[in-house]
């Protein structure tokens, strides 16, 4: 899952923007055409330069969680512009490498980029103006700390921590890929019983470890998120010994919540703190429930390639055109669509997840999406 190369995507970007702007030029009124043309090229330059700035903030973008898939909104302006480059950053590997991140988030709702195209916003073609904003570093206000562990999505579901949490369903069949890229990769995350550390020691780590280094990163997390990542004990659904009043002020290492899927009586659990963005969560759930292989994954291969320019495809659960929809129950008991709010906000309000079939969801008034993303 290599991050997109600047060169090929820049070129395609150039072409697509050029073709887009030329398609906008009305053939009969040169005078109007001129400003538009100028606007689009200048805009492109501006975007290009702001992308350079963004490349320095790449890790910040990564930790923003969810990336700038809102490029999709641009593509919804006119369907022929599907070739508009959309490169969602890969939030897992190489958080520290300064790769250029092409996030062409021309439509931003709020400071954080969203993983899904906002459903209703980009409907009208021609309302190009409100989306043609030049991105600057200001658009990423909370991406301050690159050291924050949020940028590491290679954290795992810490199954070993809770030894007595076995309910017959542990030791699941996830086989990690045998050859993972060097450096910190996400592969080691979702594997039960790895690294092989005794449950007793895992408990001890969680309870007692309080070195200055750990404290420092814990507070860095707090600062960068602006909200407390030390998760609510009520959400802490594993079998920790509640007699232990000796919890030191450390980031809790797991947040297991239930995941159910329509039509499947037995649910699963997933560790949300092992993810730093919707993408990674959606991929995990996809793998868990084998959605890509299921009937209902309706995207064709051709579509996929076109969408991503050959790069990583968006997960089924975050794709508005698939047959599955990911919803969650929040603290107030309401069922919401996953992906609307920033990741950290989601983390603090989610109680459980449910994968529904879109046929049933339509009745809930959710739009089925206005195009592929």
């Amino acid at each position: 899952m290599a991050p997109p190369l600047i060169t090929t995507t820049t070129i395609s970007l150039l072409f697509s923007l050029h073709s887009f702007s030329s398609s906008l030029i009305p053939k009969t009124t040169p005078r109007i055409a001129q400003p538009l043309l100028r606007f689009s090229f200048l805009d492109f330059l501006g975007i290009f330069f702001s992308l350079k700035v963004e490349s320095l903030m790449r890790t910040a973008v990564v930790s923003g969680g969810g990336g700038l898939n809102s490029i999709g909104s641009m593509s919804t302006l006119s369907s022929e512009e599907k070739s508009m480059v959309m490169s969602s950053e890969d939030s897992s590997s190489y958080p520290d490498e300064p790769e250029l991140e092409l996030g062409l988030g021309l439509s931003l709702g709020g400071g954080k980029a969203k993983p899904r195209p906002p459903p209703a916003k980009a409907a009208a073609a021609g309302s190009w103006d409100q989306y043609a904003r030049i991105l600057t570093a200001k658009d990423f206000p909370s991406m301050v700390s690159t050291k924050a562990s949020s940028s590491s999505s290679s954290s795992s579901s810490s199954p070993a921590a809770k030894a007595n949490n076995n309910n017959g369903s542990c030791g699941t069949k996830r086989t990690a890929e045998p050859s993972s890229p060097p450096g910190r990769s996400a592969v080691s995350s979702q594997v039960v019983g790895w690294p092989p550390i005794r449950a007793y020691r895992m408990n001890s780590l969680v309870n007692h470890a309080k070195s200055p280094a750990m404290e420092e990163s814990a507070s860095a997390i707090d600062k960068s998120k602006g909200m407390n990542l030390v998760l609510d004990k009520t959400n802490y659904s594993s079998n920790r010994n509640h007699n232990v009043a000796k919890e030191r002020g450390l980031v809790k290492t797991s947040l297991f919540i239930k995941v159910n899927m329509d039509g499947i009586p037995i649910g699963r659990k997933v560790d949300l703190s092992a993810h730093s963005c919707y993408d990674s969560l959606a991929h995990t759930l996809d793998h868990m429930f084998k959605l890509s292989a299921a009937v209902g994954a309706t995207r064709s291969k051709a579509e996929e390639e076109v969408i991503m320019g050959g790069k990583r495809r968006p997960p089924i659960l975050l794709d508005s055109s698939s047959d599955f929809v990911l919803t969650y129950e929040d603290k107030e008991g309401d069922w919401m669509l996953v992906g609307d709010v920033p990741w950290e906000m989601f983390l603090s309000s989610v109680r459980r997840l449910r994968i529904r079939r879109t046929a049933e969801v339509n009745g809930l008034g959710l739009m089925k999406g206005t195009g592929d993303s």
Partner: protein
Amino acid sequence: MDPDQSEDSPSNSANSHGPTQPQSPFPDEVLEKVLSFIDSRKDRSSVSLVRKDWYNAERWTRSKLFIGNCYSVSPEIVARRFPRIKSVTLKGKPRFSDFNMLPRDWGANVHSWLVMFAKVYPFLEELRLKRMTVTDESLELLAKSFPRFKALTLSSCDGFSDNGLKAIASHCRNLTELDIQDSVTDDVGGGWLSCFPENFASLEVLNFSSLNCEVSFDDLERLVGRCKSLRVLKVNDSITLDQLRRLLVHAPQLMELGTGSFMQELTPRQYEDIESAFSNCRNLQVLSGLWEATSLYLPVLYGACASLTFLNLSDVALQSSEFAKLLVHCPNLRRLWVIDTVEDKGLEALGSSCPLLEELRVFPSDPYDRHHRDGVTELGFLAVSRGCRKLRYVLYFCRRMTNAAVVTIVQNCPDFTHFRLCIMTPGQPDYLTNEPMDEAFAAVVKTCTKLKRLSVSGLLTDLTFEYIGKYAKNLETLSVAFAGSSDWGMQCVLEGCPKLRKLEIRDCPFGNAALLSGREKYEMMRSLWMSSCNVTMKGCRLLAREMPRLNVEVIKDEGNDDGQADRVYVYRSVAGPRRDAPPFVLTL
């Protein structure tokens, strides 16, 4: 475990001698007297094979029973063969249960054994259990059935609560050892400690460091004060520094100490007091605990470290500087367990301060790589190997390693008997050359001829296993994860290592061909574990059919297709299939 241990009929030895068996030159009593001096189980096994009367003499003189896999033999068989047992060691679940790879209620419940012991060995004195389920009911039975009971060790056991411990404390009048290690039992209160009778003073070993409970300090203090023979005391983190001081004042003779929490605001006077309390402990050989110790309070220990041979810092995340300062005071260190927050720099200090080091275990502070800390690397390991040439046991968790480093390390320390290297990212190659780590483990098995235990990690092809099979002649335990390229790898090991007893494999591309290639071998081994490999039910059934003296158990995963055998546990047994198997364990 030796196969002979589970033999229940002496017919084997009888077969080798005809009816013209000569009279033994010794009367039975002499033979028995001589044999009673033999302690080693291996020797006893050999003895029992010589002749029928030797077999009988051996079985009547054996007092220590070791059963490495509680399902390899049944209580009845044991009772028939050995009439006079005073000490039992029983191990239950496969080792991977420590890492949550086994569902709850898998088994290894000690109760049926205790019922039999209560009948046949009323004079039982010692019971040491590892990875077994021990309920309160069992502990109560234990406490009431054996009037001479002295020593109880529960290592990585579950299933009990303070009720069971209360029974032990109240009824075992002659108790000398109560040793609870690595327990993850949630449900334990602290009231059991107060159940020791007022006149009870025989305790020599008390270890409750892994129990999450608050005990009454007053009762503990009184207990420690009474027990003049106390040599091992390991408390849990509910005991504060100042309380520890008071305990030390009562028991300066301690040889092994597990401290409580080291985090407390001390006045200068208190600091001095605790410092002198530690200095009075001149016999201290083992030190552990030290929860939340910081550079501020670590120095109180210095006076007690001169004779220290085993320092267990695996519960406290020290930085390299404070660690280095501590080590200066521990020149006689033989064993060290530490967390990787000390980093390579700390390990360099170790190399220079502790030349007598024989065992090193480095645990990760951040196993899931959440905080991107460096931890230790190949450089730290190299530094230790240069300074500590006597190293023979290592357990090393790291994020990167190179072939060259391992080659150098084993050249520096060729006496390794236990080499457990865990590169935490599965399938990670040599980070400098990007090659598989085959050459590293090749060097290990070629150079370390005494190697008994090996855990491999990193990106490994079948070549590694070819080397292991070819060179590791003394290897007894092999743990493999995310390695190998084909069945051939596992076959090499099964055909090669003559002394192999335990083989644990997870997430490797080994399939039925590999599984079946070891058919005869498994009868000479204690057990085989394979999980998330390419083994199918068909293969397992075939193995079970061909080898009736093996128990081939498959642990069913819900939601799995029926063809794959995700978790397979194969072990030899004279007791036949398990009678207490839960529904998700299929014995084929």
